[in-house]
């Protein structure tokens, strides 16, 4: 609570106490406060007491209302609230002066009092939620310890130039993007990527600004200036996210623009027409005044953008950056997912996926590794990596171009290569039909086995695809691989369709075509790793780039960035989008229905000003609290569909 809020709270509590003291005295004394003086001027005592409380709680509202009039802001909420409450007082004076028991002093006073209570809660709740959301984005480094002339100086990160060395002590944030030049430590990148496991770094590794150094002192050579570094890019992006307004927000702003004048107009009509017809001015003026109390659309105007912002905040905490509430809104409706294969569905690196016969795995890999150990080809590297140990030395290696390697040692000959090599040496072999590149291994003219090398499918791919399928989404894979490999990969990961043998430029055409074919309400997402698919990311309805840390092009071109190279960010974002939109619709419907109901009840005389003040501030507070639900926990509880999909898979 800020100092001002504390002061306001004390004022409210004291005024509440004073109000109830007067109120109870009025109700318990026989004849009420009117009876104390009695006679014609009996109403003066309750009037004076309530007016004192009214002034104490409402002087600022009155002052703002006055200032509003001077500035030509007639439909300002302060002004309307003053008219309503002062009107209630006036009615009470009127009844009191005409010799009847005055009613309404308490009401006029209470409405303003509760209005202030509500405003206080509203202020407090928005302040809290704003803080809790922006706390998520608290990744801005305050200072950098830069080494200059052998001394460590603490300066603003924006003053550090490329090539300078900064010292990062344990517990501090890495201020700028760079490369470690001294020391090794582990980095907590949770604030950036949502990844909870710390990342081990040592000399030569690149580090990203905004991550927190956990164990020990390191020195980093700066590679990017502050305005170019990851942390400023992310902050810019999140701060500008509020600028991309969603349809729901635009609707609300438009609604709010007309709501107040319409309600005020209705209040005027309500006072004048039935008043003139029935002659019961007092009753109808009272109803009209109650209208004014509900005429502020604040609940809606605050809660809808707040919900979106909470959604964006919650997503960014989990390493999913959403560039605007319009994208969150669109992503909720997303039902066509087009994936780039390499680097997105697969790891984009080659690895041994199968050795046959499996029983001879060790021996086959050992022979293949010995033969391939000097090659820099990715396939050869993956074979050596799969073997794990140090390949046997001493072989004389001869490269047979386009076929493979022949390795000879102590009269032992090892053949390692494709089927052409086997045929050339007259070796009978068992063909391997799996998708990928096959390496056959033979020893002394006899076939030993084969190794299948393929692009590794990410471990989460199947789970994510089947989850999306279970939500009724269409999943499409785009790849440059040939039909055979593509179809076997597509089958394995379970995408609903695929397009093979595509050159990079064909991907744009393919997405264009999908965009042209889709129904109007469908939303097409393209998911890529951000490497040379910027045009497709821009062209699709929602472009999702993966592995955003360090890839500026991807951050620029996409609408949603998965900071971690993990597809599970997609269902996660989907869940957040769903929840956000639910809360947004709930808030819109709830506020409009409650306000409309109160207006109707007031018009027919079933509601009074007490209920009206709830319709104003109570609804706002409830809507704000509801909006904060969006900022909840998502990581721990997978949705029911996901669980179902997992058991099915």
């Amino acid at each position, binding site marked *: 609570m800020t100092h001002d809020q504390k002061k306001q709270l004390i004022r409210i509590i004291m005024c509440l106490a004073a109000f109830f003291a007067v109120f109870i005295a009025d109700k318990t004394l026989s004849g009420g406060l009117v009876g104390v003086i009695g006679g014609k001027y009996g109403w003066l005592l309750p009037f004076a007491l309530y007016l004192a409380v009214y002034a104490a709680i409402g002087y600022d509202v009155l002052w*703002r209302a006055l*200032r509003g009039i001077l*500035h*030509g*802001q007639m439909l300002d*909420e302060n002004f309307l609230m003053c008219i309503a409450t002062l009107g209630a007082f006036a009615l009470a004076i009127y009844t009191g002066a005409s010799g009847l028991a005055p009613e309404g002093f308490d009401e006029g006073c209470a409405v303003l009092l509760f209005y202030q209570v509500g405003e206080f809660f509203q*202020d407090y709740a*928005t302040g809290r939620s*704003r803080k809790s*959301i*922006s706390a998520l984005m608290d990744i801005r480094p305050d200072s950098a310890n830069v080494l200059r002339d052998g001394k460590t100086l603490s300066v603003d990160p924006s003053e550090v130039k490329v090539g300078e060395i900064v010292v990062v002590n344990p517990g501090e944030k890495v201020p700028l993007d760079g490369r470690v030049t001294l020391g090794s430590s582990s980095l907590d990148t949770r604030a950036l990527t949502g990844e909870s496991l710390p990342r081990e770094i040592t000399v030569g590794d690149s580090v990203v600004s905004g991550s927190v150094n956990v164990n020990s002192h390191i020195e980093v050579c700066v590679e990017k200036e502050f305005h170019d570094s990851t942390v400023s890019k992310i902050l810019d992006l999140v*701060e*500008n996210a*509020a*600028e991309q*307004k969603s349809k729901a927000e635009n609707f609300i*702003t438009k609604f*709010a*623009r007309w709501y107040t004048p319409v309600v005020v107009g209705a209040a005027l009509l309500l006072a004048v027409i039935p008043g003139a017809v029935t002659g019961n001015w007092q009753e109808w003026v009272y109803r009209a005044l109650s209208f004014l109390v509900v005429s*502020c*659309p*604040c609940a809606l*105007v*605050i809660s809808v*953008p*707040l919900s979106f*912002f909470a959604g964006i905040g919650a997503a960014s905490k989990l390493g999913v950056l959403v560039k605007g509430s319009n994208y969150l809104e669109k992503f909720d409706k997303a039902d066509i997912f087009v994936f780039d294969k390499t680097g997105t569905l697969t790891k984009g690196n080659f690895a041994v996926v199968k050795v046959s016969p499996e029983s001879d795995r060790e021996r086959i890999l050992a022979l293949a590794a010995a033969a391939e150990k000097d090659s820099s080809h990715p396939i050869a590297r993956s074979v050596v990596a799969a073997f794990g140990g140090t390949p046997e030395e001493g072989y004389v290696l001869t490269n047979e171009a386009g076929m493979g390697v022949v390795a000879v040692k102590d009269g032992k000959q090892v053949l390692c290569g494709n089927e052409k090599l086997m045929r050339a040496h007259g070796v009978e072999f068992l063909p391997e039909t799996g998708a990928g590149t096959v390496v056959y291994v033979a020893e002394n003219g006899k076939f030993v086995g084969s190794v299948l090398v393929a692009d590794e499918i990410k471990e989460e791919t199947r789970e994510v695809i089947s989850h999306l399928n279970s939500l009724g989404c269409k999943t499409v894979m785009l790849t440059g691989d040939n039909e055979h490999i593509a179809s076997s990969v597509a089958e394995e990961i379970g995408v609903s369709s695929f397009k093979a043998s595509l050159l990079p430029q064909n991907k744009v055409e393919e997405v264009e075509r999908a965009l042209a074919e889709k129904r109007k309400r469908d939303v097409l997402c393209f998911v890529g790793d951000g490497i040379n698919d910027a045009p497709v990311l821009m062209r699709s309805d929602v472009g999702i780039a993966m592995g955003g840390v360090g890839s500026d092009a991807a951050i620029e071109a996409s609408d949603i960035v998965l900071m971690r190279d993990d597809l599970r960010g997609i269902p996660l974002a989907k869940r957040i989008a769903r929840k956000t939109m639910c809360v947004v619709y709930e808030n819109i419907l709830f506020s409009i229905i409650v306000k409309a109901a109160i207006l109707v009840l007031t018009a027919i005389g079933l509601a009074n000003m007490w209920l009206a003040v709830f319709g104003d501030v109570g609804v706002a507070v409830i809507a704000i609290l509801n909006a904060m639900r969006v900022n909840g926990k998502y990581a721990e509880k997978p949705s029911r569909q996901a669980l179902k999909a997992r058991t099915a898979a």
Partner: protein
Amino acid sequence: MKKTFELVGLDCANCAAKMERAVAGIDGVHHVSVSFITQRMVLDADDERFDDILKQAVKKCRRVEPDCKVRI
């Protein structure tokens, strides 16, 4: 030119919307967005008249919500 300004003491969401409308009406403003949550105004306006437009914008904001100050 596009610039971001902090709004101090903006405590009414409807006022933010009103400010946005008022500033958008100034001649030479391409786009303006007032965010109640981030307490910021992003103003995109003609380069050569920017200072003048900004002055008008500050005035308009003060009219809508006198308690709120544009930090320049």
